């Protein structure tokens, strides 16, 4: 048992930090520091830089652009990007589709797609959720009927994150509606978003953001070579994908960055008689969150260090549910601290067109984002396996029920 970072790991962190500092465009860093998501152009630009450096997909096999790194090294890169803050490589590409294709794809698929997935030459979105399905993913209804060398796909996907930016989509479709169990008879396809019959309709979330979409599939012709894995065994790919990389869900690095920024802000934030940061109650609440975050950081490292054993057993570590549950809670708690810090000026809505104004602001930028972020982050405990689903998984894993 050695509970400290080694000298090599510390040196690696310095190298990563220096490289990010040198290569991350200032506008990207500033936009992210303000608490906003990167623009499409920023995301692509940054991922291409990472790809050129060999750091876009370090967890992939070396032959597909990965690095022979330890889990700790990968954690350090990821944490440094989150803390800078810099964009992380697009999860749909790097953590979802890529590993699925590596595990289940044909050689041709790998050769053709993996470099484009890693470099973000092709932006993928995820077509899993459907209206009415929610956490019950396997109840999906989108149909794909084989006709010659195509599947004809009809149905609807929803909550499709950043579909408006995507070049391609990977999706689960039902190819055998007569299968005995609902998890059977599902297939995993990829499709070009420009295929006729695919329509994207924005969903505006309660904070006013356009992050998610509905995707309508109307007689969409998908070549059979776009099938990943075996027909009717798509649920294997889905399960593999969902159990993959849960450690990322804790987002400890990002939360630490948000906390650091909040401390700076709260030192100046007007609190009547004194800055907000000097209110002992606010500080206690902040410290309570920090302490839990420190514990979560340690838990993340423990899960990571255990990753090789887990991978060889091909079953998820129940502690990974800990990461999702607490990681979510802490991100939400931090968003509430921002709302507290903003006080009455938190009522000012963030204006997506604010850049165009020449007038003085009616509130500080961070104040106007506080409530929007709080509202937006309620999603964290809903998507990617809701907190309720995570607890069901844990109960199953150790109650055996």
């Amino acid at each position, binding site marked *: 048992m050695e509970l400290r970072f080694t000298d090599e790991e510390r040196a690696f962190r310095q190298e990563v930090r220096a490289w990010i500092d040198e290569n991350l465009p200032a506008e990207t860093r500033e936009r992210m520091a303000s608490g906003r998501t990167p623009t499409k152009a920023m995301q692509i630009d940054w991922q291409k830089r990472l790809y050129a450096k060999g750091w876009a997909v370090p967890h992939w096999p070396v032959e597909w652009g990965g690095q022979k790194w330890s889990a700790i090294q990968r954690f350090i890169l990821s944490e440094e990007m989150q803390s800078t803050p810099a964009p992380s490589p697009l999860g749909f590409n790097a953590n979802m589709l890529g590993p699925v294709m590596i595990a289940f794809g044909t050689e041709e698929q790998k050769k053709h797609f993996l470099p484009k997935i890693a470099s973000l030459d092709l932006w993928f979105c995820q077509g899993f959720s459907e209206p009415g399905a929610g956490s019950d993913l396997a109840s999906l209804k989108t149909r794909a009927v084989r006709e010659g060398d195509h599947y004809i796909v009809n149905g609807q996907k929803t909550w499709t994150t950043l579909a408006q930016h995507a070049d391609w989509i990977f999706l689960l479709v039902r190819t055998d509606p007569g299968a005995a169990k609902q998890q059977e008879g599902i297939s995993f396809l990829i499709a070009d978003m420009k295929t006729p019959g695919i329509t994207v309709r924005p969903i505006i979330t*309660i904070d006013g953001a356009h992050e998610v979409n509905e995707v309508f599939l109307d007689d969409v012709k998908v070549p059979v070579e776009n099938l990943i894995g075996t027909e009717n065994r798509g649920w294997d790919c889905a399960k593999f994908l969902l159990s993959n990389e849960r450690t990322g869900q804790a987002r400890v690095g990002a939360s630490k960055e948000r906390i650091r920024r909040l401390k700076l802000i709260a030192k100046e934030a007007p609190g*009547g008689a004194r800055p907000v940061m000097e209110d002992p*109650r606010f500080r206690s609440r902040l410290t309570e969150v920090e302490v839990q975050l420190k514990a979560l950081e340690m838990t993340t490292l423990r899960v990571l260090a255990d990753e090789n054993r887990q991978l060889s057993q091909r079953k998820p570590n129940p502690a990974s549910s800990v990461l999702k549950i607490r990681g979510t809670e802490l991100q939400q708690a931090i968003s509430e601290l921002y709302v507290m810090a903003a006080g009455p000026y938190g*009522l000012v809505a963030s*204006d997506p067109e604010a850049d165009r104004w020449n007038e003085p602001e009616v509130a500080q930028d961070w104040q106007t984002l506080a409530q929007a972020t709080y509202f937006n982050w309620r999603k964290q405990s809903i998507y990617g396996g809701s907190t309720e689903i995570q607890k069901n998984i844990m109960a199953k894993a150790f109650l055996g029920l």
Partner: protein
Amino acid sequence: MDFDLSEDQRLLQDSLAKLLKDKYAFEQRKGYMASETGWSRDVWAAYADLGLLAMPFAEDDGGLGYGAVETMIVAEQFGRALALEPFIPTVVIGGAFLRHGATAEQRAALVPQIAEGKLLLAFAHTETQSRFDLNDVATTAKKDGAGWVIEGRKGVVVHGDTADQIIVTARVSGGRRDRDGIEVFLIPADTQGVTRRGFKTSDGQRAADITFDNVKVSADAKLNGGLALAERVVDEAIAALGAEAIGCMEASKDLTIEYLKTRKQFGRPIGSFQSLQHRAAEMMVCLEQARSMAMLAAMMASEEDPAERRRQMRAVKIEIGRNARFVGQQTVQMHGGIAMTMEYVGGHYLKRLTVIENMFGDVDHHLAALSEEGGVFVAA
């Protein structure tokens, strides 16, 4: 002690509920919100017809002479409907300033206009540095002959963009945070030197940032009562906002329970899952506890001892705020994704409840103050 509504009160509740049912379907509300004012002048006129805008004023002044219980009943209905009109700024807050701080002449001139829906008021008290402290006032009022000159800037003036007259706290003497030396002025919004910049609030309603640049007003623009007046009015506003929160929480809870009953997952209504059942039960507990506090607020709104009134109103603010947060968050959580969208009413309750929690002091603000004042049960 009696918690039942009188016949008249029930009538008031029913007729307003009916009006809102007609006028405040979610799609209608969207239309009002998208309009320039951000609310509906037609619906405002309907409120006037119903007598709502005359409610709190003395009959001698042209009002109905209703009290805090009636305000509670009405605000609760507005909360259920997520109504957008400036009832609280104009009738509750503006009304209270006129009742407690204006001369008989002023009331005679203004109350009928309010009652008819022709005069809108807004209360400008927040400043960039003040946070939630009413006594933290950098805006100044200087004697200018018989009148006054106002200089300063006020932020987040709820419905300040459409108000005809602005009620402004300003400092005539003393340091920025002194409790003495604050006066309240009633200033027509079209007075020279008043500049307003309207914007949307995070719940989709409207507010304004207002600057006062060498604004000259007459002597009678100053109401009587200073900070004590403003605090008394704010306590009445807290009672009304609390009742609005109850309506909002109740609608939110009803919507959620309906959803739990009808939405199916894994082949059964999600309301059959015990963890959600218990959460729903907890929502109910929160709602009932908050409702009790809204009633306490109605009871205390007319309390003459300011220290006692303030303490109880802080407790009201704390308990309703905490429970509203739970109910709002759980409404979204138990619905899942659907309540994260603008197109569904669920998330709008969370947003409105968040804004209410942050008006006139958030939970921690009042918790700090109340615990420094010795807590709830000091004399009991």
